[in-house]
């Protein structure tokens, strides 16, 4: 579509500005249209896994305080449903939402259309089949028994193929980028898409080596497990927050230099931190000390992000009331500061002496992957999907219910398990207290955890309804709100 002389004259007295605006709008709409199929497929699949993952989460949680619940079916025993929950929310929900967001952000930041539009939806299908097959394998009793790596090793083939395509897509967009500057989010996205496949490949292959047993296996396990969080989902979420917060409030990042410092410190230190999971384990002390030092160094990127986002938001906090994206992303960013600072100190031997192998760690993990990562991904959905579908979200109240049940659920979950876990650790360290007393003490808190999980499940149902509606409604028929803001009528005209 071209800009006509009549339109330019009508927009006087600034015809040049009008032309620039229309060109930018056209570019943006074309980019969104190129991303539509791939990102929508990844996003919709992620929501299905989120719902299924929630079912297995509830099963696992209820079994913690009512062990007889569904205990007569071997495929529904705790040892199977709990890893299924982890893998469905890890590789189903989180990773697929991350890929959708990553592709859209790269296209927008490079200002080029998404390439390989025929192959990318195929990668989504393969990803779904892999997660489905992995789920069946675990339920049938063929888990690898290694946390975060329970899927059969054959999954490596699928993920390796997919990540080759994803990396090629990212590199092609970067090579053809129309914006000379590499925005801070792009550094994080490249880190994620380059490092995760290397991590996964090395972890899966090394686990199959006959020489890797015992403590060595545990070391690789936690080096991989921690890095999956730190070098895969965390960078994508931080990249999203560095794009969404300034973009939604219409204000650049407060200090761009600090944001770059945050990235490079994360890139240099995060991958050293994994061995803190083995504090007290039968490993050379220096290996664990390296992990602890790496963990404490993470205070640098965490602090930079907290300062930067807070200073960027000053003067715009009132927009938390009016923007769903901002509400979720700012919540997630604030939780990132809290959970990461907590994680740094949790790595210390003195804290681990109490907190390790208790519910305290479980609370921390959920605050990270849900309170931080998932909340930011929800925010990304609220921003991206209307632009891809050229549609409006169907219900503001339902979005608010989604936010408050998700936030309330994760806060209740975290508070209950943190409290219970700390005292559980103190009690287990006291040889005079019988073990069963520890179990009885934590039971009410485990019930509170199930209530928190229930709230989060309600949030996911609301979210799924919203996503279902926005995907089912015909495009451009329902512009009754300003999620799209940038003149929906003209945007609709350009997209048609």
């Amino acid at each position: 579509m071209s800009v006509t002389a009549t339109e330019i004259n009508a927009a006087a007295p600034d015809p040049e500005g009008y032309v620039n605006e229309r060109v930018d709008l056209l570019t943006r709409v074309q980019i969104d249209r190129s991303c539509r199929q791939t990102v929508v497929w990844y996003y919709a699949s992620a929501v299905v896994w989120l719902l299924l993952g929630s079912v297995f989460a509830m099963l696992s949680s209820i079994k913690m305080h009512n062990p007889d619940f569904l205990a007569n079916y071997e495929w529904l025993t705790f040892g199977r449903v709990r890893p299924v929950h982890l893998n469905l929310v890890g590789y189903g929900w989180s990773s697929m939402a991350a890929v959708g967001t990553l592709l859209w952000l790269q296209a927008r930041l490079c200002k080029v259309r998404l390439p390989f539009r025929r192959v990318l939806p195929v990668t989504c299908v393969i990803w779904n089949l892999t997660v489905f097959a992995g789920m069946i394998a675990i339920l049938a009793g063929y888990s690898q028994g290694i946390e975060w790596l329970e899927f059969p090793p054959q999954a490596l083939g699928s993920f390796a193929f997919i990540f080759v395509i994803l990396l090629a897509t990212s590199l092609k967009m970067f090579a053809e980028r129309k914006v000379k500057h590499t925005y801070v989010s792009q550094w994080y996205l490249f880190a994620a898409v380059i490092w995760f496949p290397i991590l996964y490949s090395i972890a899966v292959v090394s686990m199959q080596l006959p020489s890797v047993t015992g403590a060595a296996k545990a070391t690789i396990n936690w080096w991989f497990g921690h890095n999956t969080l730190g070098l895969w989902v965390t960078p994508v979420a931080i990249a999203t927050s560095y794009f969404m917060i300034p973009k939604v409030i219409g204000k650049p990042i407060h200090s761009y230099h600090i944001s770059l410092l945050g990235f490079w410190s994360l890139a240099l230190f995060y991958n050293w931190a994994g061995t803190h999971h083995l504090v007290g384990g039968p490993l050379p002390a220096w290996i664990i000390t390296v992990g602890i030092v790496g963990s404490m160094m993470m205070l640098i990127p965490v602090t930079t992000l907290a300062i930067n986002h807070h200073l960027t938001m000053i003067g715009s906090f009132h927009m938390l009331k009016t923007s769903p994206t901002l509400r979720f992303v700012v919540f997630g960013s604030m939780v990132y500061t809290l959970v990461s600072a907590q994680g740094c100190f949790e790595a210390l031997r003195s804290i681990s002496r109490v907190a390790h192998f208790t519910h305290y760690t479980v609370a921390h993990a959920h605050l990270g992957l849900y309170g931080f990562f998932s909340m930011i991904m929800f925010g990304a959905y609220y921003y991206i999907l209307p632009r891809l579908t050229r549609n409006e979200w169907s219900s503001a109240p339902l979005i608010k219910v989604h936010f408050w049940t998700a936030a309330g659920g994760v806060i209740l979950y975290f508070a209950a398990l943190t409290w219970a876990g700390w005292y559980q650790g103190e009690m287990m360290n006291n040889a005079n207290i019988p073990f069963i007393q520890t179990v009885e003490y934590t039971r009410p808190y485990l019930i509170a955890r199930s209530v928190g999980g229930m709230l989060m499940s309600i949030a996911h149902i609301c979210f799924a309804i919203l996503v279902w509606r926005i995907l089912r409604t015909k495009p451009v028929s329902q512009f009754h709100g300003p999620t799209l803001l940038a003149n929906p009528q003209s945007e609709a005209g350009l997209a048609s």
Partner: protein
Amino acid sequence: MSAAYILIWGCMLLFGCSSICALLWAIRTGQMTGSQEGANSIFDAAEPIGKPTDAFPGAKR
């Protein structure tokens, strides 16, 4: 066992080296200068600085 540790530490060093290489590339190509330009690069004429781009559906602009 030692092979596993070499694998892990080797990989950690590889990641560290890749970060440093990327950092050197960024410095050489001027990515670390002109910070305000970098921060503004997500805005354009259609979505300029000062223009909010998200709100609840049904809300008044």
